[in-house]
């Protein structure tokens, strides 16, 4: 009888791997093992995309995000507009009205000034459209070879709507799960522009500011109907749903047939062996809402230009807490797991 033992694992993680930035399990480990113990406090411990804080009686949402996208310019946007939308969206999905942004630039020696101007202009117009003001900033320059042209960090502050307290820990069995539109557009738009992947596609990034869509959702729903919202960026819809399932200790069941995927995104994913559920979005949101108000919220979203394909994609259940499952078109069910690191293209 051969004992059921596997070979010894590789020693503990002593260096940072690319997967630590993927938004998957490795990122979660980094938070759990390094940052949460170091910074321990009740606000951070909620692990939402934004912190809810109170200053002098005013309830504020506060968030930050760094942008290291390559290429810097891509169909549907650029690193500048992305840096504005990303932070605006993190505030918006927290139920806040975005107000002020900061912008920090890490520039690489030799970076073309014309490109920087183009990025700054793009940020300015994205901020104007999103109704936010960039009120402070910082610039550092690193030696040639120490950066990828430009990295941008933005932080943002917004006012929380009165009585609104969203958190990924508030999903309850019976709630409905809403997705605001097609998935995977941003990730595939970026990937198809990458060096070495000569993929001709007309996929444009969905990069957009979601605050007015969120406003429409609040206007259409009663107090407390919206339990939580997230924008499924890196790690995609699958990772976002897993985070909600884990933080709320509930199960989530989604229906494959309700998820909209553009054919060009599907084609690229087929070709590369990627699952669109894990591909990044920059202009979509996932919301968990009270079932009885879900239809009204979806209706309101569909009337908004950024929510035309909004749909209820599943429900929250008391079964299998912490786990996301999907009913396939075949009537069978499968797990939608959280990935360890980035999706890797298959060999054949």
């Amino acid at each position, binding site marked *: 009888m051969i004992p059921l033992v596997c070979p010894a*694992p590789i020693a503990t993680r002593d260096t940072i791997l690319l997967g630590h930035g993927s938004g998957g399990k490795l990122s979660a480990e980094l938070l759990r093992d390094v940052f949460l113990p170091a910074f321990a406090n009740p606000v951070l411990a909620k692990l939402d995309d934004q912190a809810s804080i109170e200053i002098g009686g005013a309830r504020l949402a506060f968030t930050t995000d760094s942008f290291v996208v390559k290429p810097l310019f891509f169909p549907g946007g650029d690193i500048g507009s992305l840096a504005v939308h990303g932070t605006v969206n993190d505030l918006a999905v927290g139920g806040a009205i975005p107000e002020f942004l900061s912008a920090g630039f890490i520039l690489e020696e030799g970076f073309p000034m014309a490109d920087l101007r183009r990025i700054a202009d793009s940020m300015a117009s994205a901020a104007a459209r999103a109704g936010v003001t960039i009120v402070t900033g910082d610039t550092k320059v690193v030696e040639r070879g120490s950066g990828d042209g430009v990295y941008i960090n933005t932080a943002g502050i917004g006012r929380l709507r009165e009585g609104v307290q969203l958190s990924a820990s508030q999903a309850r069995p019976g709630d409905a799960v809403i997705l605001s539109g097609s998935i995977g557009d941003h990730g595939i738009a970026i990937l198809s522009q990458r060096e070495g992947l000569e993929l001709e596609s007309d996929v444009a990034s969905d990069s957009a500011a979601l605050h007015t869509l969120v406003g429409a959702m609040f206007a259409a729903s009663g107090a407390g109907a919206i339990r939580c919202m997230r924008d499924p960026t890196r790690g995609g819809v699958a990772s976002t749903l897993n985070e909600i399932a884990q933080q709320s200790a509930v199960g989530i069941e989604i229906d494959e047939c309700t998820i909209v995927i553009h054919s060009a995104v599907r084609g690229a994913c087929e070709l590369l062996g990627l699952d669109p559920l894990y591909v990044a979005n920059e202009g979509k949101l996932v919301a968990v809402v009270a079932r009885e108000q879900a239809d009204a919220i979806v209706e309101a979203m569909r009337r908004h230009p950024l929510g035309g394909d909004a749909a209820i994609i599943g429900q929250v259940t008391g079964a299998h807490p912490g786990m996301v499952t999907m009913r396939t078109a075949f009537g069978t069910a499968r797990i939608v797991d959280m990935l360890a690191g980035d999706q890797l293209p298959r060999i054949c």
Partner: protein
Amino acid sequence: MKYIDEYRDAGVAKGIAQAVRALVTRPWVLMEICGGQTHTIMRYGLDEMLPPEIELVHGPGCPVCVAPLEIIDKALAIAARPGVIFVSYGDMLRVPGSHSDLFRVKAAGGDVRIAYSPMDAVKLARENPTRQVVFFGIGFETTAPANAMSVWQARREGLRNFSLLAAHVLVPPAMRVILASPANRVQGLIAPGHVCTVMGTREYEDLSRDFHLPIVIGGFEPVDLLEAVRLLVAQLEEGRAEVENQYVRSVTREGNQPAQRIIEQVFEVSDRQWRGIGAIPMSGYKLRPEFAEYDAELVYGTGEITAHEPPECISALVLQGLKKPVDCAAFGSLCTPERPLGAPMVSSEGVCAAYHAYRRRDVGQPILAVPGGRPRLSSRPEPPERRPAGTIACPTEPEVR
């Protein structure tokens, strides 16, 4: 999407599953060889649709999983050398060698890059004449033509800074080992459609005859695989043992002859070590002596690197279809995709990874909480859906615009 949607039609799939239920009179053990096929079975829950008499076991056709420790260690040694650009398919980066993996070599300063084609590596060699570019040429017969072409092209261009770390394995010799084993339970084979697209079906005719075994060349979409199962069950119930081609839209009896010619020009058949199975004579490709200057093993003198395969790993049994991943005590607890203990958990094509991704609930948890889902391996007959061929059975068409 043409050539995909019609093979993912839930109505057609349910009809085929119903046909299998009507055919089957006793238990049969079928093996799908290719990891891509395993992935589809798990992803769509095809085994849940089939009657309980049909047991699907999973074969050795995951190139990452069967790559021996030794070749990974050689790759790590070459990738860590200064001046080398080491180019690999993405899947290989996470596969553990004896002490490290390519991701760690990259984090430690090695220039490791992911490519989608070996020709990208040739291009890198052309663009970086002062660097040495090494491509990790791994896979079954499917990827052999492209890898052979990269060496052929490099020689044609006179590139002296390109080499191939070749670790090709061949399906038929491994299947012979598995089928000849006294422990073998496999009664019918779904042969790998992509391998046969390149190589044709003649080798499988020999296998079928020698082992009196029904073989169906199968595709990779759910309808392909269910149809392959149906054809196998029909053969088994009728006592036939022959080769049938389900994947006719891609596979011919002769295969892709220009591809076979480039393989033959550049590679020769050689003995190979298989992770989990051991040494199999004449079961792989190595570069022919006339291409020695493109052989990374010779260029970098990695011949001395050897690695001890842990003999106790259950992956050996999993890769031969003798055990299921859930039979492993470490599955899902000590061994997970982020901390893999064995190669089948690393690769997205690996059978342990497929079970972990789609089926973890099978381990000590009630199965199927999704409304409308049927219990796994239920024998309750279900009426075939009546709908015109070619329509999607989803309530809403998932693809818009």
